[in-house]
């Protein structure tokens, strides 16, 4: 079975002739992410769009796990699911009435957008293929999915967010063991983002409060804060 699959799609073939699970899962998640993203565009019903979007984002989280960025993958699952969940709820609340379930776009616009999008895609893919250093992989082609192969990613990320870079720190003058560079931590952006989130929390609650009836302002604010976390 495996050899025929490998002949069909050589990206799946491992060095030793078996099935390359890393390639297999990459292909699976990539296809899922792309097809569902296209489905988001093609669908008219807003709830279905949100459903496809969540699945596409989930598949992308799978891609992050495969790339060794476990923390980012988990973050994507947690925040995007929370955020998109809220999107879905709003979609239901605002558009569940019959005339809004599907707002149609003229076919002419769709064709035009498809042409422009196709051209953009061609340029981007050309760019993606043009870097010779970007091809090839460090992942071992052997049996296991190279998931655990990377270093534990959460601790260095957390340290970087509080301002200490494990891979070469500019504050202490430590140089990275690999390339002798120093890098700056992310304490300031981290603080800015936290203040930004607070501002957004207040702003969203203010914007979403109902101006007609005083009593029903709470629900929208609750939901929108839940999505940000």
């Amino acid at each position, binding site marked *: 079975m495996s050899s025929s699959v490998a002949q069909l799609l050589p990206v799946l073939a491992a060095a030793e002739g078996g099935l390359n699970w890393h390639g297999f899962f990459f292909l699976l998640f990539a296809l899922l992410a792309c097809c569902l993203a296209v489905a988001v565009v093609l669908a008219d019903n807003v709830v279905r769009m949100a459903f496809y979007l969540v699945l596409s984002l989930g598949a992308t989280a799978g891609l992050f796990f495969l790339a060794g960025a476990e923390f980012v993958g988990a973050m994507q699952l*947690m925040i995007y*699911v929370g955020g998109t969940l809220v999107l*879905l709820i709003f979609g239901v609340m605002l558009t569940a009435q019959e005339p809004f379930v599907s707002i149609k776009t003229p076919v002419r616009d769709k064709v035009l957008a498809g042409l422009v999008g196709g051209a953009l895609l061609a340029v981007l893919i050309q760019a993606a293929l043009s870097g010779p250093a970007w091809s090839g992989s460090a992942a071992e082609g052997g049996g296991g999915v190279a998931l655990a192969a990377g270093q534990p990613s*959460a601790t260095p990320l957390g340290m970087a967010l509080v301002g*200490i870079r494990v891979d070469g720190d500019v504050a202490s003058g*430590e140089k990275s063991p690999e390339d002798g560079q120093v890098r700056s931590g992310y304490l300031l952006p981290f603080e800015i983002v936290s203040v930004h989130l607070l501002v957004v929390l207040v702003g969203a609650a203010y914007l979403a409060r109902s101006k007609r009836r005083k009593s029903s302002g709470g629900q929208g604010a609750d939901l929108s804060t839940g999505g940000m976390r």
Partner: protein
Amino acid sequence: MAEYLIQTVGLPGWLTWSLLAVLSAVLILNLMAGGALVFIWAERKVSARIQDRLGPTRTGGSFGWLQSLADGIKLLAKEDLMPEGADGMLFRVAPYVSFCASFAAFIGLPFAFDMVGLRLNVGVFYVVAVLGLEVFGVILAGYASASKWSLFGAMREAAQVVSYEVPLGMCIVVPVMLAGTMDLVTIAEKQAGWFTNWYLFHDPFTFVVFWVYVTCAVASVNRAPFDLAEAESELVAGFHTEYSGLRWSFFFMAEYSSMFLVSGLAAVLFLGGWNGPVPIATLLGLSDGTGESTGAIVRLLGLANLLGKATLGVLIMMWIRWTLPRLRIDQVMTTCLKYCTPIAAVMFAGAMTWLWVFPGGVLNLDDGSRRPGEIREGWLEGPGGRSTAVSDAPVDDAPALAEIAEVSK
């Protein structure tokens, strides 16, 4: 085990990994399905005893052992209905979304040392994130059913679960902070030894946090008194009003397995994971207490420990369900936003202060031996000489110092 198969049996690498993956998946799936059968039977018996009844007594012997199986067969034979105005695709897919979410969360839960579907560096974060996906299936079901009851149930569930994730996350951060890692295996390993090492008894703040976690966990898996999504006295059956047959039972399997999952997570985070209250294995000399050199017997013991703790958690949830009345939706939100979240935040700050004031702990009956988790994460110098070049920082100092030592690695 992978090395054994590759080297001794001589299987090619990819086949070994595939076999192991299928094996883990089948084990977890059976745990979920079998667990649901057992728990549904247990729920009937527990509820009956609480209400001074007998519960199932005939099917399969005098205790009604086979009642859930009979129920399953009945569900299989039921007609698969779909309302006329329903959104067909979403209606069909929703139960599987719920089920897959709680199945995927099991991948990260360790059952004993090395008995974990996939050991993730961000284990606890992953489990919570994936478990949060379960609500998605419920909302889809509520929307797609084209029924007012279902939509109300789904909306309530969405508001409730999204809100309760905030205090739940804060509670989970406390043991993560104590352990200094998000790896569930390491968190459990660090509580090895006597039960005084459990994070439940680490300090007064963690003790409170545990109960807040229990409240939020019950709410986040939609069990009474927080089962607003399916409040049968108000909403017929809530989000699954329109479901029947096997699809309906998928929702229930998801519910029972996520109950089991949050109980297992509580066991790992606060109750020592697979480490029993008394380190029997160490006392008997089967293990050296570090968990690294454990034989099959010790692992089975650990498995029994964890399953026992998780089952106890599920039984407590049943007890709560059948003795407390349901809250109103505003009371549910009040509990979350006005009580659980502030308490969790204060306890988080308190636990942090405690860690700063008593870095070694107060009730520390531990002999100060180095736990394998700390060695593996590179905080401490390992016995096998994984040279981590720890500077002169004292061993039992806060993890942050050792982290900085890792910087210089």
